[in-house]
């Protein structure tokens, strides 16, 4: 720090930062992107390994042989569901009781803030059924959960069948040390959310539900199962949960070891993992998987009902049976054995899963990047903002020396309240004003919400011309005409850096994605030069445009590219889903964008059109 406390050297350093600012910024940005791309190469990506000693070896003899039973249960369940048109609660209760479980039901209802057009639901009411296998001679202090979310369509019958067959098999064993909860939820994630809230006796999302009659202590881990066919070609595993939370890496390792043991074909993000990491092809394939994971994690939505468990610190993942055109198929016994193995291993746990990583990125099922290695990427990107802010600060400092005029400067704080107000309007008005909108325009509620969102978003762009023009008359100061926007940009840069830093700490993917798009234009924005170009760039990198771009990238990586019209439709649907998920599950992406990043982005827009 001697470097900084010496005024002479400090001045030299300041001059260096000022003169080399642009190249330094470019270098830092490029370094950030390059670092991220390098994450898929072997020194940075490592093999996964099991850290938890209690689950160390796979020496469990799986005895599950209830394939026929599972199929029979599945057929019965599908028939009953077809007959009643909803979850066959009575049949489930009867069947669970007949396999020896302690059975309870829970009814819940929820009025969504506006109709969900993707899932075609508005006033939702349903019933969850769960059976508890009490561990013999234990005191019900810990439990494991196997859950199957059932939607309104007729999928997941085989998953229910397998759940029941596993319950019957598990019930006959004497080695259980933790209770096992077999949970079948209606209305997929809504049911899961209702059950979890009732289990923990909290009300986070305004769900109305009956209290639970039976509990089984602290839930240690959960596995969600989605299966819609009697045979599968592969099992896909989803880890990304609500707000980008991830389960402990050991749970994934556990799944992977049993995949290997049973010779199952397992995929991550629908992609097989490359075998060869030494050549270039392997890492490139890994990069696809990694990008898919980043996009999914950044979206902050729960990708499977496991995602909702993570809030309660229950390590959870979703297994999806995929039935594609591959030749070799596995039957339910193979899947059941993998699940049996996982549950027996989880049964051995002495402590909650905590040994392995909670923050990681996955370029493949057996490869991971730890937090220490991926954080520099976003660090480099944020450094650009820091450098730019430093430059502005120094320029302001030099310009402002001896020119302090009391009350003369406009203060950068002028556009702050209107932008924040815009953000608040964006957050509150669409849902609040949907009825007004439907009365005056020929649109449905969901459409009204999305269109209001877009309208307010666009209205924000018109704001700067109106807000500070009356004020700017006072501002025109011959000595330092640039001081106003520079101060505003300084504030905006620091604000953005803080926000992105905080986001990157909790949800790296979101932070990185936003930083990649927002940082360059934020650094460039100034009221001189090619304004239209800057404006176009700024619009292209605004949070909403980032979302649109991510959708295209997402489908491109999934090898199902979108046309422009499809992309737009998907974008509108994603907006509605984003708002809905905030209200139904407490996803934070919508408030984050509307209350945090959008106002911040408006500040840069203000800088650009500063007069």
């Amino acid at each position: 720090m001697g470097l900084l406390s010496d005024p002479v050297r400090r001045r030299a350093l300041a001059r260096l930062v000022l003169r080399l600012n642009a190249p330094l910024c470019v270098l830092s940005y490029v370094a950030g992107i390059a670092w991220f791309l390098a994450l898929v190469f072997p020194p940075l990506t490592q093999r996964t390994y099991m850290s938890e000693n209690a689950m160390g070896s796979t020496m469990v003899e799986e005895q599950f042989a209830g394939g026929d039973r599972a199929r029979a249960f599945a057929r019965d369940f599908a028939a009953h569901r077809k007959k009643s048109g909803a979850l066959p609660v009575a049949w489930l209760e009867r069947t669970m009781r007949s396999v020896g479980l302690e059975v309870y039901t829970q009814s819940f209802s929820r009025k969504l803030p506006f109709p969900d057009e993707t899932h075609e639901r508005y006033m939702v009411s349903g019933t969850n059924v769960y059976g508890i296998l009490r561990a013999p001679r234990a005191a019900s202090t810990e439990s494991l959960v196997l859950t199957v979310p059932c939607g309104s369509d007729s999928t997941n019958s085989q998953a229910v069948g397998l759940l029941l067959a596993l319950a019957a098999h598990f019930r006959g064993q004497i080695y259980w040390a933790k209770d096992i909860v077999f949970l079948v939820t209606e209305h997929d994630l809504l049911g899961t959310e209702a059950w979890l809230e009732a289990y923990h006796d909290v009300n986070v999302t305004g769900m109305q539900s009956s209290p639970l009659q039976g509990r089984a202590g602290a839930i240690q881990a959960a596995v969600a199962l989605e299966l819609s066919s009697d045979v599968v070609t592969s099992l896909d595993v989803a880890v990304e949960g609500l707000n980008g939370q991830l389960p402990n890496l050991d749970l994934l390792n556990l799944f992977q070891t049993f995949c290997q043991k049973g010779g199952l074909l397992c995929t991550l993000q629908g992609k097989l993992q490359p075998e060869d990491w030494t050549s270039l092809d392997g890492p490139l394939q890994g990069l696809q998987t990694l990008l898919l994971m980043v996009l999914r994690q950044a979206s902050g939505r729960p990708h499977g009902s496991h995602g909702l468990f993570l809030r309660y610190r229950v390590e959870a993942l979703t297994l999806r049976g995929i039935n594609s055109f591959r030749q070799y198929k596995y039957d339910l016994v193979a899947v059941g054995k993998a699940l049996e193995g996982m549950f027996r291993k989880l049964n051995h746990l002495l402590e909650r899963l905590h040994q392995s990583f909670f923050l990681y990125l996955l370029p493949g099922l057996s490869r991971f990047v730890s937090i220490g290695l991926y954080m520099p990427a976003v660090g480099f990107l944020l450094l650009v903002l820091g450098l730019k802010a430093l430059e502005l600060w120094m320029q302001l400092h030099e310009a402002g020396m001896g020119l302090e005029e009391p009350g003369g400067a406009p203060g950068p704080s002028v556009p702050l309240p209107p932008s924040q107000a815009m953000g608040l309007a964006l957050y509150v008005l669409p849902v609040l004003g949907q009825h007004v909108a439907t009365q005056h325009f020929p649109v449905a509620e969901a459409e009204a919400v999305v269109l209001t969102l877009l309208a307010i978003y666009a209205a924000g762009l018109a704001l700067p011309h109106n807000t500070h023009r009356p004020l700017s008359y006072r501002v025109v100061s011959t000595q330092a005409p640039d001081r106003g926007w520079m101060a505003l940009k300084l504030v905006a840069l620091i604000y953005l850096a803080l926000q992105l830093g905080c986001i990157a700490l909790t949800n790296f993917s979101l932070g990185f994605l936003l930083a990649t798009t927002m940082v360059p234009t934020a650094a460039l924005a100034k009221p001189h030069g090619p304004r239209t170009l800057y404006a176009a760039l700024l619009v292209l990198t605004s949070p909403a445009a980032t979302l649109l771009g991510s959708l295209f990238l997402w489908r491109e990586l999934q090898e199902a590219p979108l046309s422009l019209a499809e992309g737009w439709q998907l974008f509108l649907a994603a907006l509605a889903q984003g708002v809905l998920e905030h209200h139904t599950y407490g996803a934070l992406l919508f408030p984050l964008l509307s209350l945090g990043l959008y106002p911040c982005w408006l500040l840069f827009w203000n800088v650009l059109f500063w007069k």
Partner: protein
Amino acid sequence: MAAAMPLALLVLLLLGPGGWCLAEPPRDSLREELVITPLPSGDVAATFQFRTRWDSELQREGVWINLGRSSVMSSQGSSAPLSTSSTPPTQSLPLPPSNPWVWPMTLTTTFCAMLCCRGRWSAPKTSPPGRSSCPVVPRASLISFHLLQAGLSVLLKADRLFHTSYHSQAVHIRPVCRNARCTSISWELRQTLSVVFDAFITGQGKKDWSLFRMFSRTLTEPCPLASESRVYVDITTYNQDNETLEVHPPPTTTYQDVILGTRKTYAIYDLLDTAMINNSRNLNIQLKWKRPPENEAPPVPFLHAQRYVSGYGLQKGELSTLLYNTHPYRAFPVLLLDTVPWYLRLYVHTLTITSKGKENKPSYIHYQPAQDRLQPHLLEMLIQLPANSVTKVSIQFERALLKWTEYTPDPNHGFYVSPSVLSALVPSMVAAKPVDWEESPLFNSLFPVSDGSNYFVRLYTEPLLVNLPTPDFSMPYNVICLTCTVVAVCYGSFYNLLTRTFHIEEPRTGGLAKRLANLIRRARGVPPL
């Protein structure tokens, strides 16, 4: 690692009635008894009770009660009774451990060691502070017996006891008056073992049972030293129309009594009755259901309770206890005792008790706040439970951050909070008559009757597992320490930089000569040039 095994197999050496069967101590008497109760769910409960009575003055003689290898000295100068039990409390089973006495932690631990119950106390220095409580070990593992076999203890075969769904074990020692004026005292040692056999696992789904099917043994001879050795089988008919079950061999006598408010009929098999065993050389009691009971939920008792931790995150939480009174028209009071470890800092002002949506004011509250590392919170309340209602008692707490040496070796497992204890006089369906303890079967002492219209019940709720904020004790912890140090150093210099004002010094003139001169001047005490 023993702890890693789901069913830790520990060996209990030489504790058991068999020991006395062969030891021939003078002036002792032993009574043994087995009660078999088929439960409506199809499971079968078996309760063994062995009662030994010493007609000697332990106190005056200062004798050690020699229980096999472990010895416990009766507390000197006091005739306080002792008892402990290792019972994982499960609310769905009608087998309340009845231990109405108080006693110190060290003795409990000793007994626990003796019972091999491998108890984990919820914390160091959290002794159960008494009142209506009795120590129950929150997390107990199964034991295995090593017994000298005779009499009823023949049935205690370790590997069969692993197939049970519930077990509870207790030891009680108490003084008994030898005569009406209580001029001399005898000591009574009572050992009980209750197990519930799981119909699903042992019976392969069938509900018929026999001694052989449950224990893989049959009774062959009575204990030669026992003055009483009996098997009771609950043959109460559940519906009045016809007999639903049948026992074989047919019992010679039956016994009727009011247990927990309902009338029960027991078939009695007396092992000392020579005809009982000599006919077939062994006794294998069997029970057949004439009409198997339906697969339905067992009948709900009048009083039951449930307890859980609500909330998420590691900062705050809430302890909730649900008390169910399912009696259709009678309200009754319940004494609720909670001992909560100090590291859950209770907010007493958040204590709420609601029944049927309305606030329920307890008629008596005793609260003793916790002292850090010394004593737990003690909360005792007398609550009136309205008829046919659910009463919710909830209190919020904050999770304390322990000193890092205070965490257990497995801190991420969580910390146990011992069960709440509920004591209540529950209205009975049938009027009971007061009993003569000496004459009635031993198992009656498990269900003490207070008066004709009520019966006494003590229930233990589930123990809870609560996670506290836990530092990462592995390598990253060191990393955090290191990072903190580096950050502290950086912060120090930055702070220094920000709070100091800098003045530009005039450029130094003069070279080595001036500096030398100044050095000399400073040595002389003259201001420098």
